[in-house]
């Protein structure tokens, strides 16, 4: 074999091995979590609130709490992120756009606990109590820059010719953006939104300072709120074997939830044309 073929073979093998390694690691983690978690999984685990050691109990309130926190954070973070990202790609070529882009990039790099402390100081200390709203706010702050930057990149990928086609038909700029460019970029924008959802659903640190956690079912936004991650944390740091199993089971539920949301969003934003 000549040099070129040998190089080709080596590089192909190397990249394939790397890909295999990563996927294998992922499968290993997922199967280990399933193996550890499945034994404690039951209907009562999914609906009950936490109870003292040995008395059973579950994460029902934490699942509801996580979904409420996530729902509120998404309702604020995703539209705002898409709006800012659209602004950056369509009109953000000046100095103001440069600053906004820089701020967003910086925010992506900030450790999530900082957002927790920030909201703790700004909201929790002022109000004097932990609350769902404070928790959602800290999650939204994490989501906004992620959605912003992915939206901007995805909109930039829409070919110029498509915009020109619409402009040439007499469409004003805002209509071109709203009903040609954004729909064309929708799959990518949804992927960015999903990334941010998966990211904050797995956040613990900011919630410790803001939503705090709760042992009860709760729907009031001005009260502390349970979440799966904080519940996993509490179960996991305990000295009890029983609670460790519950932490595994809760982790399995969390991952399944993220996967389900992911598949669902991909389905509804799939390319139709």
């Amino acid at each position: 074999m000549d040099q070129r073929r040998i190089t080709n073979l080596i590089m192909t093998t190397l990249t394939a091995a790397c890909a295999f390694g990563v996927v294998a690691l992922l499968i290993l983690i997922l199967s280990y979590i399933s193996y550890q978690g499945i034994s404690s999984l039951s209907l009562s685990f999914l609906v009950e609130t936490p109870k003292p050691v040995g008395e059973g109990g579950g994460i029902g309130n934490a699942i509801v709490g996580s979904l409420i926190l996530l729902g509120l954070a998404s309702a604020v973070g995703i539209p705002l992120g898409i709006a800012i990202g659209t602004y950056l790609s369509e009109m953000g070529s000046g100095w103001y756009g440069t600053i906004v882009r820089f701020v967003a990039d910086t925010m992506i790099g900030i450790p999530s606990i900082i957002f927790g402390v920030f909201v703790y100081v700004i909201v929790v200390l002022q109000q004097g109590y932990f609350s769902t709203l404070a928790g959602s706010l800290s999650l939204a702050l994490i989501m906004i820059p992620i959605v912003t930057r992915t939206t901007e990149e995805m909109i930039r990928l829409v070919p110029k010719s498509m915009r020109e086609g619409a402009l040439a038909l007499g469409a004003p700029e805002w209509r071109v953006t709203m009903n040609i460019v954004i729909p064309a970029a929708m799959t990518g924008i949804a992927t960015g939104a999903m990334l941010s959802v998966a990211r904050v659903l797995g956040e613990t640190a900011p919630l410790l300072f803001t939503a705090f956690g709760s042992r009860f079912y709760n729907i009031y936004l001005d009260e502390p709120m349970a979440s799966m991650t904080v519940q996993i944390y509490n179960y996991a740091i305990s000295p009890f074997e029983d609670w460790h199993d519950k932490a595994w089971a809760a982790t399995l539920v969390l991952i399944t939830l993220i996967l389900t949301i992911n598949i669902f969003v991909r389905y509804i934003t799939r390319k139709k044309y």
Partner: protein
Amino acid sequence: MGNIFEMIKISVSNLNFFYGKAQALFDISVDVLEKEVIAFIGPSGCGKSTFLRTFNRMNDTIPIARADGSVTIDGTDIYAPNTDVVALRRKVGMVFQKSNPFPKSIFDNVAYGIRINRIHKDKADLAVRVEKALYDAALWDEVKDRLQTSAFGLSGGQQQRLCIARALAVQPEVILMDEPASALDPIATQKIEELVVELKKKYTIVIVTHNMQQAARVSDRTAFFMLGKLVEVNPTQKMFTNPNEKLTEDYITGRFG
């Protein structure tokens, strides 16, 4: 033959065009007549596409672009400060070099311009207009059974005719074509050319082409551009047999370009 002044659709006088400091068009004056096909030919980078895009102010999308001189359509200066660019683009349709259908169904592609300009009275009227546009673009028979499917499922030539249908749907008076067949195979090209000849009955057509045979086949008059200057404009027949300028003859006979 009527009065020549009544037949002028587009009149360009002393047009200079700049991208920033670089001048792309030099002092161009030419008239486009009502319901003629005029072809712009010339080597790459000679400014023929830039010139074409001054007719519907597509160059406005480039921030550093600037035009001076005048372009009038039906006697109205389209570079006047109070010009409604949206209305202008409705009147002056455009077909691009690369077909650029929207990520929508075939029907919605054609309906887009009708909808944004609110041309239709109701749903039924919209459907009629879409059908007519597709029919006029010689595409109806090929797509009538799959109007709700993706426009990307069409072949290259069909996509280009879809883009023509989309332009026709808003009832323009002028159609600008920027090398509409340059990415198509000979059979698809032939269909587009036949279409151009057919469309001439109702529309004024300005077509940019690299293909001199194409210019000869479809156009009534031809304008030859070189380095941003209009070298010569003449009836196509004369242009290809007995041009005024030596430069034109050299280009047409393939001595450069």
